[in-house]
């Protein structure tokens, strides 16, 4: 009792502020991450009337032939696209980090473009290239696009940037001393590759494989455009929930979708720990040595990949400015006139999307930064901080489809029946359902983990004694946060903001369950326009989203370069 009293006595006003801030973040994550997921789990074990039925829904699911097909189909396309994308990304990032390749910056940016576009764009470009009346089909290069082939190609491109990012990090962490030691012993290039390079990046490789697998396993956009009759889980669950209003079956599929994601999450946690431990702090950075033939091969490879990537986006651009492919090839901008889209008001959808992305980016950045700051820079509340940290990295393991599913189940219910009891709770969040706020919340939860990690990394780089110094000077922590920590984290905060914005603008997997016809949003409208055969306006809308995202990214890069330059000039001035 005395100890508790002493503890309370030791608490200051600042501690209370910190405590409240940590709890605000924790409560947000519990309400909008944990609760919806719990609803999803409960629904999977109930029938339509809410009665507990055990594993009956699962049994029903697995006894249906078409459903089981969807599972094997999903596995097939996910494995194929994972192998293709990671293989390409492996050589691409190897060439960029270990070979003398010119225009590295250009190649890197081109390789990243798919991140900035909705996955439907890849599907549309594929239709224009390989569809029944596609450009390459007309040239005699006919492939059975609709179905698994189309999905695999689209997913391979979709997964390429994330796999490249992971592998670039892995390749950049090399110890040149190992290569020098091997050289002095006269080791062949192949042997160096097998004994040094591959073991060095194996954790990154494993991580890339799992992440790519999860991405392609759960993506909704590409299969919805080029899937044809080829059922995969993500489109299947959409049909179950939105088409047939069968929430319980949807919950079952949601849980199945969760499996690879959770597995990949666990693997990623383990490997990233090992990766960071594998390289010692004394490691000397890798020195690229010129080697004519392999440098040439690497350059050609990067060139081909970039060309293919650009071709896709050029075709989509082309599709968006042509009157009626392939009959009327006159140039037109009418597809960009969003107000006359037959599937609804395109301009409103576009406006809504931008608004949602901006709000999600603002609120998401504030929330993740506050969460990361409190977890990283507090000394007390150890248990609350640990729980909040765990909740903060959990969204990484939840595919967008599952976020959407669990949200619709959580917010849709006017009351919650507490399982096995007579009691029920009124759902205070029911009012959000059907507004843009449910989409904002979904985006904040769905994309929470990456900005959270960005903030944590940035905060970890800041001397932990800053807080101690300000305490000794009796300056409250929030003043130091405002005057020192925030300005120092400004680049990271911009990056977090852009991440939230870019992803919120193009995501479809979660929001396809959540939008309401009263407030349409652009990515969903693309899906429905495409479904209604309005491919050209759909392409135009995709391009618009892509342009906005690229512009946002360019502004960010410009800002960052400007700041770096400023810092450099200042430093030089100081030395002079």
């Amino acid at each position, binding site marked *: 009792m005395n100890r508790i009293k*002493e503890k309370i*006595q*030791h608490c*200051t006003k*600042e*501690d209370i502020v910190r405590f409240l801030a940590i709890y605000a973040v924790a409560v947000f994550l519990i309400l909008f991450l944990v609760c919806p997921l719990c609803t999803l789990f409960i629904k999977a074990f109930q029938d339509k009337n809410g009665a507990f039925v055990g594993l009956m829904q699962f049994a029903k699911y697995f006894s249906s032939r078409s459903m089981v097909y969807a599972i094997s189909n999903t596995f097939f396309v996910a494995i194929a696209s994972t192998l293709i994308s990671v293989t390409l990304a492996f050589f691409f990032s190897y060439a960029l980090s270990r070979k003398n390749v010119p225009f590295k910056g250009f190649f890197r940016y081109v390789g990243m473009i798919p991140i900035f576009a909705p996955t439907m764009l890849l599907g549309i470009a594929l239709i224009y290239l390989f569809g029944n009346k596609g450009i390459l089909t007309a040239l005699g290069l006919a492939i059975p696009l609709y179905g698994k082939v189309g999905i695999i190609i689209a997913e391979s491109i979709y997964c390429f940037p994330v796999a490249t990012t992971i592998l670039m990090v892995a390749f950049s962490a090399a110890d040149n001393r190992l290569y020098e030691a091997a050289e002095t012993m006269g080791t062949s290039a192949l042997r160096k590759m097998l004994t040094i390079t591959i073991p060095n990046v194996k954790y990154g490789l494993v991580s890339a494989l799992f992440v790519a697998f999860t991405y392609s396993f759960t993506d909704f956009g590409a299969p919805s455009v080029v899937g044809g009759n080829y059922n995969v889980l993500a489109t299947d669950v959409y049909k179950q929930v939105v088409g047939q209003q069968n929430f319980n079956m949807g919950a079952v599929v949601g849980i199945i979708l969760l499996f690879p994601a959770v597995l990949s999450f666990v693997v990623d946690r383990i490997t990233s720990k090992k990766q960071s431990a594998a390289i010692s702090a004394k490691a000397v950075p890798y020195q690229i040595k010129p080697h004519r033939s392999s440098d040439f091969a690497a350059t050609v490879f990067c060139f081909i990949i970039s060309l293919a990537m650009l071709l896709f986006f050029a075709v989509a651009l082309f599709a968006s400015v042509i009157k009626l492919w392939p009959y009327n090839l006159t140039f037109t901008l009418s597809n960009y006139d969003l107000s006359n889209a037959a599937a609804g008001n395109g301009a409103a959808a576009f406006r809504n999307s931008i608004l949602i992305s901006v709000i999600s980016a603002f609120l998401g950045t504030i929330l993740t930064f506050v969460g990361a700051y409190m977890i990283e820079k507090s*000394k007390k509340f150890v248990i609350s901080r640990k729980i909040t940290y765990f909740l903060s990295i959990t969204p990484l393991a939840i595919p967008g489809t599952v976020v959407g599913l669990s949200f619709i189940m959580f917010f849709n219910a006017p009351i919650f029946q507490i399982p096995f009891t007579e009691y029920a709770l009124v759902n205070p969040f029911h009012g959000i359902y059907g507004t843009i706020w449910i989409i904002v919340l979904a985006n904040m939860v769905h994309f929470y983990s990456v900005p959270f990690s960005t903030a944590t990394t940035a905060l970890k780089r800041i*001397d932990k*004694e*800053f807080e*101690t*110094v*300000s*305490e*000794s*000077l*009796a*300056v*409250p922590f929030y*003043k*130091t946060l405002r*005057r*020192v920590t925030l*300005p*120092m984290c400004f680049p990271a905060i911009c990056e977090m903001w852009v991440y939230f914005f870019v992803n919120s603008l193009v995501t479809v997997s979660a929001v396809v369950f959540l939008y309401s016809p009263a407030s349409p949003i652009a990515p969903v409208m693309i899906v429905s326009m495409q479904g209604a055969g309005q491919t050209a306006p759909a392409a135009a809308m995709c391009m618009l989203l892509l342009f906005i995202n690229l512009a946002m990214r360019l502004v960010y890069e410009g800002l960052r370069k400007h700041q770096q330059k400023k*810092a450099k000039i*200042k*430093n030089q*001035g*100081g*030395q002079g």
Partner: protein
Amino acid sequence: MSVSLKISNVSKVFDKNVALNNVNLDIQAGEFICLLGPSGCGKSTLLRIIAGLEQPSEGKVYIGDRDVTNLPPSRRNFGIMFQSYALFPNLSAFENVAYGLRNKKMKTRDIEERVNRLFDMIKLSNAKNRLPSEMSGGEQQRVALARALATEPDFLLLDEPLSALDAKVRISLRKEICNIQKELKLTTIMVTHDQDEALTMADRIIVMNKAVVMQSGTPEEIYEKPENQFVADFIGSINFIDDRKSKAYGFSQKGETAIRPEKIAISREKQESDMRGKITDIEFRGFYDRVSVNVNHIIYGDLNLAVDVPFQTAKAMEFHVNDNVFIKLPREEMLTFETRV
């Protein structure tokens, strides 16, 4: 203003590791104290407890007569300096020093005046508007000192403040910190693992090992009269002679003896009560040579002793390995430890 500090029966346990075991300490107002010890001895934990950054598991901390054990750091009124300087990188040197004052609702003119005075004191008036990244390590640490002093603290805590600096800068900054400390008569506690630093700067050294205080005393006391083998061994160099040999050679009746290498006399000619030995190694150490001498005795056992000889003397005597020499261990310089700590 300066205050006394009192640490009373303080213990600190992390999980199951004992970082401090019943530590007692009385620090006079205006005293410069060095906490010296190997890494992991608990000296930093003790400093953090005095600052209020850690809570002791047992015991009390007093500032003056006030029990501050449960007081947060912001209400203890101290200045602190770290090995990493911990200057705010986005603020100019001036703003760093003014940081604590801006919070005190002081008039801008008063702030400027006080900060300028501090910059005069650390002799960096021309660097006020620079950013920390535009300053050398020594300059940054001086700004950190000015920042710590700006709020007129009751006492100053220094956590290995010189360890990250170059040898030359370190020595000049030692002097500077000492001068300022004496001028302000500011109670100061410095943590260090560098014995030279402790010996040159401190009024009193607290030697710590394995969570307990091994000895507390002036630098001379610590060096000349170490109370136990740990302190004797940790500060400077010393030759230990175990209790069996000590008794055999007649250095003591009971217990281990020890002698510092520079206290042993060495010569080419035998004088009274000298022992004959053979040089086994000569190490050049700059202003002195460390000569290893082996005294061979069939019954008593071998003695291997390090002897420090001023370089000029060693040169004049032309020592070589395998030369025969005579050494003398003056009784009054020998230390006796009855028990092993």
